[in-house]
């Protein structure tokens, strides 16, 4: 079967759990910004957890189906309609051949995941269907979906409608959102005052927030420790000799606006990074809208690992509920 994109939304793309293994060549892992939501959507429609879905940001697409199937939408909260009839979020529902799936205005979060039983079956590149526009990989010719695109769907397992993720397993950011940070990398480049103010200040998500990175405004500028520029680094105090960027690492060009590097980020560059968001909180970033208030919370490794274990337990619980 296929589905046809009637309206594409803002930047709707095919995503799965990404293509790890090519970062040393400048090709990022990519994949869903909110991996938990993608896994949940797949489980609801009987897909393997890593099947490809549509990730839509801020605005939903309009999609016409050519065969009967089961669909689920997870992630941010956005009214879901099938031929105008409202459906439940985080819950599987039936769609008949010829029917159209559409969405209302975003109520909370930022990204939704649309899973179709059988999964989106566009050709994989380097082991993944995830769309990476800069490298023209995955999705449809490496780009976001456009009106008129016809996407192939794999063979489904006839998953039943009405399966639902319990409310306590639906995770979204609080307000203000809290993102936990493990200081490290080039943390020593900040003065003590800047190390303190980074965590004390409340930051706001800037309009420049996408799959590559999330920029933040509103906190005090971060002062850097004086130094003689190392050979090859560049003259700005925020420059380093170009190195790798960790997923979730926070760079602050010029010491002014922190940028969290996310799934499609550049693999390296010449700006210092002050540490990284812990792995357990990466999904939350994908659900932040511009203008959301954010507090960065300092943690040590033990707490990062504890949070990671909690996330893993939550995923295990979801599997027990739905598999």
């Amino acid at each position, binding site marked *: 079967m296929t589905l046809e994109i009637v309206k594409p939304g803002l930047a709707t793309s095919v995503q799965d759990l990404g293509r*790890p*293994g090519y*970062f*040393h*060549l*400048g*090709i990022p892992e990519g994949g869903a910004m909110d991996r938990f939501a993608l896994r949940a959507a797949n489980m609801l429609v009987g897909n393997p957890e890593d099947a490809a879905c549509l990730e839509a940001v801020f605005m939903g697409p309009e999609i016409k189906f050519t065969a009967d199937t089961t669909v689920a939408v997870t992630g941010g909260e956005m009214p879901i309609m099938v031929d105008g009839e409202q459906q439940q979020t985080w819950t599987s529902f039936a769609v008949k051949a010829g029917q159209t799936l559409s969405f209302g205005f975003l109520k909370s979060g930022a990204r939704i995941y649309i899973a179709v039983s059988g999964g989106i079956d566009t050709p994989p*590149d380097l082991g993944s269907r995830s769309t990476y526009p*800069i*490298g*023209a*990989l995955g999705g449809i010719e*490496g780009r976001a979906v456009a009106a008129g695109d016809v996407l192939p769907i794999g063979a489904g397992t006839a998953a039943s409608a009405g399966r639902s993720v319990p409310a306590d397993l639906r995770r979204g950011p609080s307000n203000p959102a809290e993102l936990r940070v*493990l200081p*490290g*990398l080039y*943390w020593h480049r900040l003065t003590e005052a800047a190390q303190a103010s980074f965590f004390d200040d409340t930051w706001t998500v800037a309009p420049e927030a996408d799959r590559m990175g999330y920029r933040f405004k509103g906190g005090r500028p971060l002062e850097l420790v004086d130094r003689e520029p*190392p*050979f*090859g*680094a*560049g*003259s*700005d105090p925020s*420059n*380093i*000799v*170009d*190195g*790798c960027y*960790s*997923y*979730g*690492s926070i760079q602050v060009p010029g010491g002014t606006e922190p940028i969290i590097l996310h799934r499609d980020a*550049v*693999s*390296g*560059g*010449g700006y210092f*990074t002050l*540490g*990284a*968001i*812990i*792995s357990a909180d990466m999904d939350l970033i994908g659900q932040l809208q511009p203008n959301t208030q954010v507090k960065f919370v300092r943690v040590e*490794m033990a707490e*990062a*690992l504890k949070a*990671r274990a909690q996330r*893993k337990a939550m995923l295990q619980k979801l599997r027990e509920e739905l598999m």
Partner: protein
Amino acid sequence: MKTRYTYGGDEHIYVEIGEEMSLEAFFVALSMSNAVRDANLPGVTEICPANSSFQVRFDPDVTDPEEMMAAIKQLEAFSDQAEKRLSTRIIEIPVFYQDPWTHETLMRFRERHQDPSGTDLDYAARINGYDSVEAFIEAHHSAPWFVSMVGFVAGLPFLYQLVEREKQLQVPKYLRPRTDTPKLTVGYGGCFSCIYSVRGAGGYQMFGITPMPIYDPEQKVSYLKDFMVFFKPGDIVKWKPIDRTEYDRIEQEVENGTYQPRIAEVEFDLEAFNADIAGTNAKLMEALNDA
């Protein structure tokens, strides 16, 4: 050089060999990252060597971060003794300096540049003490370059020139990054040259353009059929200045599937290079010219 170990969140260990760029730091980063690969440490998922540092990504559910850090630190002593020697290749990359496409782009972004009154090459020549753009261009292509990192975006090489420290060209990046750079632009930032593998944002100064693709996700280009990325760390590059006629000819050959880059297999030994830079480069060039 003093090696510094740090965490990048709970999934990465970042090892800075030296704050400064040097071939010594690059070789330690490369041999240590190779040692991490050969050690087959449980939980390691990605190993990324960079100019003077490297990064290991791992699954902390498989190996505790402290254990992983200790295991990587242990490999430092081993790689100190590793030979700073590489079996690699030298590749001739044709460059059309002062081409119309990067010129059009740099004129569009003049307000983001240190010197809006001239071109990127005018500025780079002046601040490096060259009398003319032509003399600066010659300095850029007269000695070979070493690929010290692949990354930023898909398949983009960072290149470090094989000359004495005092002869290294240094140019700052744009004051604010451009939102556009033509595909295959030959750029410059800090002490590094690069080739923009794809069109997109960029902050490096723009000197010219090569007609030779270095990234092809469709793998249609004849020499990229085996793998879509051309460069790997340790490759050596010699720029060859070309004019518009030759640019057009090569572009047509790439299109026809008949273009073959000039490549020679070579050995690079860091100690031999440090002992005799001119002699080592002459040997590299001899191998290339025989190819």
